[in-house]
């Protein structure tokens, strides 16, 4: 390469200026979504300087945590070229069953010191059970995961509403949750929120599983080519079941945090965030066709969505404007990422 007036010419004779090289480096960086987030903050800051206030940043960070956990679960399912539409219904069902156990007004273990623990066990058991149901139907009965999880989403959404109506006079939610459980939502230890501790453990565990474990390698193999994986000795069906079970488990953990924050078991918990979960994973680089995904990418996707949402909330815009702007911003990010991958694949 030779330099001429600040521009570099490569061996083919093409000129690459420093700004272009910087732009290229940014566009093809694995931190592109993070750069989008920072750019968005910079763009909106003149209108709502509160977006960078310490309290607002703390609020955004806390909002990110349960969504990130649920998105990791979905990432695992997407990596094996499947989808889980029932994530939010798992949250709702787990939430109302858990609340019915520990509620201090008529709960099955009302007043007992074991109530929160029993409720948490119930949350997790429901997540695992529904996840297993989804996995078995998909892997062993050969049903499309879209259909399976769509029907379990509908069934358990309805079941959650029915369950709530039979366990409360108001019919809309189950309140009076014990203070010790509610602490999980926003409480912490030595200034570190419990939700953050749980999230970090899950994120690190997922990252290590994907990058260092046999299960992680199986996930990639099944996602890229399930037939080749089967021929190579990968237990494809148990792997697929495993991802759905993990997705269900992680949805139930997210539900625990959300329920602690709402201080009530509500059958419409998470009803509106399914697209946020899927969107965060896709923006974070998880392929809908399977075979690729990174925990850090999902984190950047969740952060981006949460910051966009926060900015629009601070602006106090009408709902139509919020949807339009959010959709446009996410579409821009997703299209840029897709084009980038296409260029990278072409080399």
């Amino acid at each position, binding site marked *: 390469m030779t330099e001429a007036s600040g521009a570099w010419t490569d061996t083919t004779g093409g000129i690459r200026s420093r700004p272009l090289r910087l732009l290229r480096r940014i566009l093809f960086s694995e931190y592109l979504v993070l750069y989008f987030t920072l750019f968005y903050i910079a763009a909106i800051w003149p209108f709502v300087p509160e977006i960078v206030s310490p309290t607002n940043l703390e*609020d955004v960070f806390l909002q990110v945590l349960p969504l990130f956990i649920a998105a990791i679960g979905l990432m695992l399912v997407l990596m094996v070229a499947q989808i889980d539409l029932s994530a939010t219904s798992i949250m709702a069902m787990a939430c109302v069953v858990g609340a019915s156990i520990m509620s201090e007004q008529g709960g099955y273990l009302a007043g007992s010191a074991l109530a929160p623990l029993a409720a948490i066990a119930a949350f997790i058991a429901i997540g695992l059970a529904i996840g297993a149901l989804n996995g078995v139907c998909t892997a062993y009965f050969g049903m499309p995961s879209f259909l399976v999880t769509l029907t379990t989403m509908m069934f358990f959404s309805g079941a959650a509403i029915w369950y709530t109506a039979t366990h409360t006079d*108001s019919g809309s939610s189950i309140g009076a949750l014990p203070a010790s459980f509610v602490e999980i939502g926003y409480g912490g230890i030595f200034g570190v929120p419990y939700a953050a501790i749980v999230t970090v453990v899950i994120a690190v565990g997922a990252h290590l599983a994907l990058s260092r474990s046999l299960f992680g390698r199986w996930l990639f193999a099944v996602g890229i080519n399930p037939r080749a994986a089967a021929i190579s000795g990968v237990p494809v069906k148990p792997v697929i079941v495993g991802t759905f079970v993990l997705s269900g488990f992680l949805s139930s953990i997210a539900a625990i945090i959300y329920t602690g924050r709402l*201080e009530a078991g509500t059958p419409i918990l998470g*009803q509106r965030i399914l697209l946020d979960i899927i969107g965060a994973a896709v923006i974070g680089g998880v392929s809908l066709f399977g075979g690729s995904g990174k925990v850090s990418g999902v984190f950047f996707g969740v952060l981006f969505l949460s910051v966009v949402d926060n900015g629009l909330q*601070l602006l106090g*815009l009408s709902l139509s404007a919020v949807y339009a702007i959010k959709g446009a911003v996410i579409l821009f990010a997703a299209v840029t990422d897709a084009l980038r991958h296409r260029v990278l694949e072409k080399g």
Partner: protein
Amino acid sequence: MIMNRRQFSKTSLAAAAVTAMPGLARAEAPKTIALMFDAFDSDFWITGNSILKAKAKENGWNTLETISNRDQNKQNDQVKAMVERKVDGIIFIPTDNNAAIPAIRTANNANVPIIFFNRPPAANSNKYVAIQADNRKIMQITVTSLIDIAKKQGGKYKACLLMGDLGDNNAVQRRDGALDILDQNKDIVELVARVATEWNADKTFAGLTNAIQAHPDVNLLISPSDSEDAIIEQVLKSAGKWHKTGEEGHVLFSGFDGDQNGYNLLSTKYMDVNGVQNLFFEVDLAYGAFKDIWAGKQPQQMLIDPGFAISQATLEAKRDDMWGYHVWKEKNK
């Protein structure tokens, strides 16, 4: 520089006035109110939002709006965003009365007054004000007026009671108000059908159709909300029971809310009575509560809109208080 005493005094006063000006400017800065809705799924809320904005403007206040799309978790996060924007007050319409309690705590911690509009929270020990229509009382007045008309006409009646989503406290109160009066008038009115509509158009249609098929002689109908009037009209037309007052086969019909459909049906004599939530009064109550709180006074925690019933006979006299009439008037200019 040498100053005499007079010059020093004048200079000090001028300096004090200049330093006090930012404080005065802050004190005169307009108030900002956050209008935080969960959804705009009926004319009641759309009109409520318009009235809230219009009256805020009359008071010289600015408004910020948020909608949570029925996501209580998102709405609780939106409260934090509005606190961050340093609003002076919050008008709050929650999705879930239990799960809204954390939002009250957020507002309390920031010393921002929070007023629940038309949907009070579940019982809790935090500081808030709730504006609520006495749905049970309004429905009692409405059904009493309807039965008075029935008594004047004479004869026996078979009633069908439509109920809203029983997860909504307003729907529960309206059902109870209707049953209170029906129970007192069993000699004239027999309740033959109860339809759980869950505020859903398809369920309203299916439920009412089934009820009329099972009881074709239903001649008194109580609706929990004017948002269901169009569906009721469809079903009654299909059953050959959609007649005006005075015509053979007219079904005594009461509505609730006081929206433009309700006004239209009253004025065209298909509906007999409507129970009206006085939206204008509720907004005045809310903004009056803000003014009291800002002045250091604590208003009552529950401020009640007693509402009223409006019938064909009282339509001209009372329609100016009916919010739906103003919407109808605007659309039919």
